[in-house]
């Protein structure tokens, strides 16, 4: 248990420190880094999903004025490490998925580079590709672990026996489609190789993780590589690990020492190179007593990975901790397909993995004629069902009750298809949210006293999440000084090493490092330091994690209207209530929750990457066809939170909030659509054709 900071700056809704620069357009993003005389790199992508590159004809490209060079697997430098097949750019002729980088053009202008890339002629020895996911494939396999290091399967008791004996059961299959992260800022890098030193201005969720990967792949020392990233136009996990574009940019820069190189992916290219969320097939089983008490719960997940690199989404993991039941099973099976490499997308695991279970719970409530809020409360566990450890704090029930009160849930007629208003079927739905409170093992901060101000440094990232603003609040309270007297500098490997902005762990991890650095500083210099006094501190393992399970919880309530003639689905109200420890900055936290819920709304109604199994590529690869919510889709959206005092999580008393907002949203909307129409949609998204057959 850590002493929790006395909140003075913490808890205040301070405006973003970087807001003014962003509004004025002077915040510099990776692709606009001011460098002298840059070259422009454009990639050429494989147009087959499996096979070998048999020839690359670069004559047309190199003949163009302004083309500096065309890089192919023949000319490209040999990398020091090719263990990661996704990042082994231009190291061989094998094609692992459609859209893989097979060549790149360097030119004096972006326009010439683009034209030249179009003129590169690649021929292939094409092989039969396999890009079709299904649960009845014969080659499904069990991964050694699921992201990041969870066991793939868990078993406790006997779910089959519970299903056979229980008076009420639900057994259904739910699916979520392939999803793509679509941050506003595409993946982009400006790279410079000069005097044996590589500088990458990269749009990333972690400068140090990028440096670590790049040093390994190119066989460089950490001192040879600097990664800079003050601002990120969104990442949602897709910039958590460097993808092939970063390696390509560095490789291109190394080919032209002294010349900076810019490489920005197009929106279309992001659909094959920047990761995505796997489609999931979730077979759910619930066995219950007549009073709703769960006797058994099981989720059997089938999903895909790329044949060239495994990523196993932990879709079944949230079921392990959510509800009490003596008989429990979770399994994960993968199909390795000729498809792009999946990766992190906002709340990997929890986001898809709370769709099937939370709709199944709604189906169980309907079977029992029970209020779905009450069903969840009746299955609230005393301790973590998987480990038997207590939760450091768990306020799901408080969120359900607070949400029900705010939403006006009381008196709800639980029968479906009963309310027709002005030609629209109206219904309401609820689902629970959960996200683990994570702390990364490594992060260090320094604190320096400089001209009457405290300046802290840490290589953290702000993806629009508020790091520039929140870390000073934490440092100020740790120092016991006004927040106006504190600067925190982030986004540069010249600052001390910081962990990736992922797993909603940033504030916990970096904030803990800052608190340690301040403690060191005060121990050394007391309350009255001199200019130049400096100290550093690092995040410690949290001993309380031995004794407690730590997670944020939430409840989301949706009102859905379905047009009786057309099936159009609208969500006039979506309320989320969260229990996420102490809220460090309410203004920024609300943005995070609302952003997550909006993305969840998109998952519920719109988002779906259409991977053509004949070609292996996503055909709706732009924002005109890959739909995310438009303003008109977002109506009365509210985020609230309950007070939660958790002395175990960290010195701030905070839990991560970047991801929980997307968890459970789609289930709440699908449940409300059922309540409106009586049509149970088990496959996302809830499009009009899926509810249209109702009438």
């Amino acid at each position, binding site marked *: 248990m850590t002493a929790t900071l006395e909140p003075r700056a913490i808890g205040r809704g301070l405006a973003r420190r970087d807001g003014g620069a962003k509004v004025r357009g002077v915040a510099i993003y990776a692709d606009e880094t001011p460098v002298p005389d840059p070259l422009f790199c454009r990639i050429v992508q494989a147009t087959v999903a499996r096979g070998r590159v048999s020839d690359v004809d670069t004559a047309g490209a190199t003949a163009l004025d302004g083309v500096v060079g065309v890089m192919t697997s023949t000319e490209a430098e040999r990398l020091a490490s090719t263990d990661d097949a996704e990042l082994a750019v231009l190291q061989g002729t094998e094609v692992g998925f459609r859209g893989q980088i097979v060549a790149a053009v360097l030119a004096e202008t972006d326009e010439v580079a683009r034209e030249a890339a179009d003129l590169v002629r690649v021929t292939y020895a094409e092989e039969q590709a396999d890009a079709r996911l299904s649960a009845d494939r014969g080659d499904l396999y069990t991964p050694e672990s699921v992201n990041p290091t969870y066991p793939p399967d868990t078993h406790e008791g006997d779910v089959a026996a519970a299903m056979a004996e229980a008076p009420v059961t639900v057994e259904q299959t739910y699916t979520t489609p392939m999803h793509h992260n679509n941050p506003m800022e595409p993946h982009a890098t400006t790279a410079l190789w000069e005097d044996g030193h590589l500088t990458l201005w990269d749009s990333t969720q972690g400068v140090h993780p990028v440096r670590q990967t790049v040093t390994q792949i190119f066989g460089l020392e950490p001192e040879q590589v600097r990664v800079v990233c003050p601002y990120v136009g969104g990442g949602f996990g897709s910039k958590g690990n460097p993808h092939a574009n970063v390696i390509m940019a560095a490789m291109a820069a190394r080919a032209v020492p002294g010349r900076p190189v810019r490489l920005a992916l197009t929106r279309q290219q992001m659909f094959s190179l920047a990761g995505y969320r796997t489609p999931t097939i979730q077979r759910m089983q619930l066995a219950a007593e007549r009073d709703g008490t769960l006797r058994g719960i099981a989720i059997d997940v089938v999903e895909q990975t790329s044949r060239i690199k495994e990523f196993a989404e932990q879709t079944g993991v949230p079921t392990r901790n959510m509800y009490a039941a003596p008989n429990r099973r979770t399994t994960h099976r993968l199909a390795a397909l000729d498809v792009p490499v999946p990766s992190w997308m906002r709340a990997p695991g929890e986001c898809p993995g709370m769709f099937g279970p939370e709709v199944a719970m709604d189906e169980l409530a309907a079977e029992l004629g029970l209020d779905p809020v009450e069903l969840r409360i009746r299955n609230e566990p005393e301790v973590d069902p998987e480990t038997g450890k207590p939760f450091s704090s768990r306020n799901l029930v408080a969120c359900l009750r607070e949400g029900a009160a705010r939403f006006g849930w009381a008196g709800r007629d639980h029968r479906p298809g009963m309310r027709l208003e002005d030609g629209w079927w109206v219904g309401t739905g609820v689902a629970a949210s959960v996200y683990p409170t994570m702390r990364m093992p490594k992060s260090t901060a320094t604190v320096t006293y400089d001209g009457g101000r405290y300046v802290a440094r840490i290589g953290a990232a702000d993806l629009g999440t508020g790091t520039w603003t929140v870390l000073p609040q934490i440092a100020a309270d740790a120092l016991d000084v006004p927040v106006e007297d504190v600067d925190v500098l982030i986004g540069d490997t010249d600052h001390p090493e910081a962990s990736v902005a992922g797993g909603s762990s940033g504030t916990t991890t970096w904030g803990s490092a800052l608190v340690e650095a301040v403690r060191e500083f005060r121990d050394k210099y007391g309350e009255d330091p001199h200019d130049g006094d400096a100290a550093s501190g690092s995040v410690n393992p949290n001993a309380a994690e031995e004794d407690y399970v730590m997670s944020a919880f939430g409840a989301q309530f949706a009102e859905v209207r379905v047009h009786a003639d057309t099936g159009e689905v609208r969500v006039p109200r979506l309320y989320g209530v969260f229990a996420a420890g102490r809220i460090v900055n309410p203004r920024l936290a609300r943005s995070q929750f609302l952003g997550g819920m909006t993305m969840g709304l998109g998952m519920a109604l719109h988002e779906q990457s259409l991977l053509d199994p004949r070609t292996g590529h996503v055909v*709706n690869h732009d924002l005109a066809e890959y739909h995310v919510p438009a303003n008109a889709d977002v109506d009365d959206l509210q985020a609230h939170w309950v007070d939660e005092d958790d002395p175990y999580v960290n010195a701030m008393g905070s839990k991560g909030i970047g991801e929980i907002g997307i968890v459970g949203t789609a289930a709440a909307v699908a449940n409300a659509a059922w309540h409106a129409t009586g049509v149970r949609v088990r496959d996302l998204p809830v499009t009009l054709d899926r509810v249209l057959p109702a009438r």
Partner: protein
Amino acid sequence: MRPFAYATPPDAREAVLAVAERPDAAFLAGGTNLVDHLRLGVATPGLLVDVTALTSAEIEDLPDGGLRLGAAVRNSDLAADPRVRGRYPVLAEALLAGASGQLRNMATTGGNPLQRTRCVYFQDVTTPCNKREPGSGCAAIGGATRNHAILGTSGRCIATHPSDMAVALAALDAQVHVLGPDGERTVPFTDLHTLPGDTPERDTVLGHGELITAIDVPAAPIAARSRYRKVRDRASYAFALVSVAACLDVAGGRIRDARLAFGGVAHKPWRAHRAEEALRGAPATDESYRAAAGVELADARPQEGFDGGNAFKIPLLTGTLVSTLRALAGEETRA
């Protein structure tokens, strides 16, 4: 993206000649579709002839009570014009249902009907497409077909026309003024667009170098009670899954006349003459509307696809038509 020349001739006549004499020349107006195609490699013109300043940007009253819409009138201005809003609500609503405010500020009256299909395979030069590259095949057939046509398709192309404005103009019996190298001609709007047949590379009957200079919307008292209803996958900023442009004249519970056109279902704005005929004289009831939809959709041929296909468009269009006509008839009851 390929380099191209850019020309700003002094008048429409010279613009037409400039395009007519070069097979790889194209007109440029608002550019909201063409510029995308330049970037994607879908269009590779050697010469762009800018006509934005060469045709009228005015909306003029015609002697019969109709309106002449200059080809350079911006979609946003057209939608906001009080005469358009008053005489042809269906047209104003169709315009406002399309694109975004920014795009409508750029898009023109002459350019909007000439926008090309949003078929994802047409827009992706790595996949075969008979419209983009005649004879290369159609990747859409058997592919992702949710947005594709159910009427008038061919074995070579199942694309839909994406314009909302064009659907309203088809219902309003508009006339298109065209200037070509051989002079002027007028084309009924319903004849402007073609079905794909064996030549899906053609979207319209316009020849190379022919330029739309204006569109006449004739007087149509029936259009005073008209509506455009667009159904799409999100509440805004998406192309129609189906749409209905409808004008309805109802008296004493009976339908005297109707004008109907459908969007999102064919290679062209689909003027529904058969449904109109079925409605004339029929009682203004859901049953009549449903029966009219059935008549028009009798020949509908849904597409299968790995995304679930587009058979849902038949009940969806039926429901949309019923809903739209019911609402229009309700206005009569209240009036």
